[in-house]
């Protein structure tokens, strides 16, 4: 009993160590900034461990066999060719492992798909090649703007050194308050695009003529960057998404500043 708990504890520590090392590294998903992103991150880590254990098991056996059961070592071949018991076992065990994998995933799927009771609703529209945002409901209702890549062409053409946020910077960021449930409604004007912000665990296609939705709640203020994830033509690589998460007070100030400029926005709305 004692040795069992020691083993379990060691396992948990190893897992925690590995997970903390991996956070923020370039070898893993970005540091999660929402409940869903955290779930995804953790499930991915657990799956990697399961895969690693199976991998070591299967290839441990195979490479042992490759090393020992060689003709050059004079090993004589056995002649067995089936064993119902063994075959049943290695069919049933993977099924059990899959159930273990599917259970937490199912919970997360149900949570991801539940877009009810948002604090705010923002419509994102994909264009070739930029995003349009309309704040439909909640604090900031009526705000509307386009969001385009702001990286200068000269950086793309290698005439100037590239900045830190090369291709991941826009003229107008989507600004949202921290800790609020934000529902994003998506559609597109021309072809299919996809709205993706990895740190928030959100990716949803924007489909012309149809409405799709998704949601996120950002844990803390910060700037989170993503890109269009569905091939949408020539400048598919040049329509980033930048979400700026502010504290409630800061957000209210931003809304006030935007509403002052409503004349500009209205004219933008008309040109759409």
């Amino acid at each position, binding site marked *: 009993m004692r040795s069992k708990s020691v083993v379990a504890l060691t396992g948990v520590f190893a897992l925690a160590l590995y997970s903390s090392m991996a956070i923020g590294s370039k070898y893993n998903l970005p540091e999660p900034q929402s409940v869903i992103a955290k779930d995804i991150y953790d499930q991915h880590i657990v799956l990697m461990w399961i895969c690693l254990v199976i991998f070591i098991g299967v290839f441990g056996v195979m490479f042992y066999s490759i090393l020992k059961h060689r003709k050059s070592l004079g090993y004589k071949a056995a002649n067995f*060719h089936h064993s119902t018991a063994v075959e049943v076992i290695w069919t049933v065990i993977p099924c059990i492992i899959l159930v273990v994998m599917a259970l937490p995933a199912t919970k997360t799927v149900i949570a991801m798909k539940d877009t009810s009771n948002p604090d705010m609703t923002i419509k994102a529209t994909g264009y070739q090649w930029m995003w349009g945002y309309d704040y439909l409901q909640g604090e900031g209702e009526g705000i509307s703007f386009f969001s385009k890549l702001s990286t200068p062409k000269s950086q793309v053409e290698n005439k100037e050194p590239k900045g830190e*946020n*090369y291709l991941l910077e826009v003229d107008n960021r989507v600004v949202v308050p921290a800790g609020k449930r934000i529902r994003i409604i998506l559609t597109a004007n021309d072809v299919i695009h996809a709205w*993706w912000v*990895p740190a928030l665990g959100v990716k949803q296609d924007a*489909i012309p*003529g149809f409405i799709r939705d998704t949601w996120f709640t950002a844990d803390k203020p910060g700037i989170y960057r993503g890109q269009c994830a569905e091939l949408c033509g020539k400048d598919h690589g040049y329509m980033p998404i930048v979400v700026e998460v502010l504290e409630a007070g800061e957000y209210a100030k931003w809304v006030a500043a935007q509403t002052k400029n409503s004349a500009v926005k209205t004219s933008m709305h008309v040109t759409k």
Partner: protein
Amino acid sequence: MAAVHGDAHSHGHDDHHPSGIMRWITTTNHKDIGTMYLWFSFAMFLVGGTLAMGIRAELFQPGIQILEPELFNQFTTLHGLIMVFGAIMPAFVGFANWQVPLMIGAPDMAFARMNNWSFWLLPVAATLLVSSFFVPGGAAAGGWTFYPPLSTQGGLGVDLMIFAVHILGASSIMGSINIITTILNMRAPGMTLMKMPMFVWTWLITAYLLVLVMPVLAGTVTMLLTDRHFGTSFFNAAGGGDPVMFQHIFWFFGHPEVYIMILPSFGIVSEVIPTFSRKPLFGYSSMVYATASIAILSCVVWAHHMFTAGMPTVGQLFFMYATMLIAVPTGVKVFNWTATMWRGSMTFETPMLFAIGFIFLFVIGGFSGVICAIVPIDIQVQDTYYVIAHFHYVLVSGSLFALFAGAYYWIPKWTGRMYNETLGKWHFWLSMFFFNLTFFVQHFLGLAGMPRRIPDYNLQFADFNMVSSIGAFGFGLTQLLFLYVMINCIRSGEKAPQKPWDGATTLEWTHLPTPAPYHSFEKPPVVN
């Protein structure tokens, strides 16, 4: 069908068949046609590979250097189409043409003339695809999956692609009907279904999948064509259609297609592993059932390619569970191969190396497949380099490595000569090294957030992209070594004995001289 059997070797015509180019144009001989399929697919492999080199050259550094974004998209699109339809699929049909009659003791394919036609359609389709680079507007640039409305926007290149897909589909359907008929009707006396070599079994199941899904692909590209030119709105929301319906129809073809490209590989590996382990295949019947279950399951998992398209919760859960289930029969196969090697008496000639390399890397691709099947994780990795890494692990180190294993395994029987073992091993180890250099790092790129199909990227992705490009150039060059080994074998290899592999047990080794004569099994062998 006894009549077919009788007619196929009516005597006399083998003595005065045309020579020179007319021999190849008019041939109805399964060996000639198999050879043409294999050379054609290798040529297409080089064309598709050249496109890949262009892609990796552009991605070597951030910024736009070589390919403008529009041309870059044409390269990725045609790379995918040419590799899938021009290289991998015809290569497997080539193997089927050569090996199915030899392994079941039949004199030829059931429909010998149709066999000729199904091959000669391919160069036509390939010409359409390759020449589309030179028409106004350039080649199709909407990805090999050509989702509308983007593919509705393209120019003449898209139409050429649509016709090419039609022709390739017709060729595949004819080829698979031929294979099904041959296997079901022309087996040697005594060879019951459950005594067939695994390669034949996997091709029988693959051929059924092809007949099931190629018409679906033909249908969907036709709908795209009429949307583009004849005013229909199947996939246009403004006219009452639905762009997502295209994705459903496309992937109803597309997912079984994935297994069309991997099941015959399972077959080749299931021949190679027992031969070089000098031990019968472990769990033959469970292998057959596993192959059949994979084929059936592959028809009900298509929407896992569309988890981010938006579908009801129940839909996402169904497709997640069904997809995960495929891991079970696939796992059974891997365990069976391991058990076949266990307590065998192994040697490691090039075919065996490629077969083991296949299992090792295919399992990695299988793991990333399970990870992609989990909806929440897929939401993160969908349309990123993670998916690119995943499917190259199953398509390159899966299908392609199995094709190499098969080529080295059967080339002595086909040509009567041995390949150079040292060079073959170099080919394997270099492929193994450069393949992993190219694609393993792409897992990291995808997780860190690099989308696929982009010509330019943020600086955080720069190191791994450079590593990946270096790997890709190395992998590309290594394949020229394969070409050299094969030509060297055909022209000046050492004479091969009837059975160069002492563990081989199938009919082509036990009953036929080396090289296999132009007409073989004119009298069917008797199988115990």
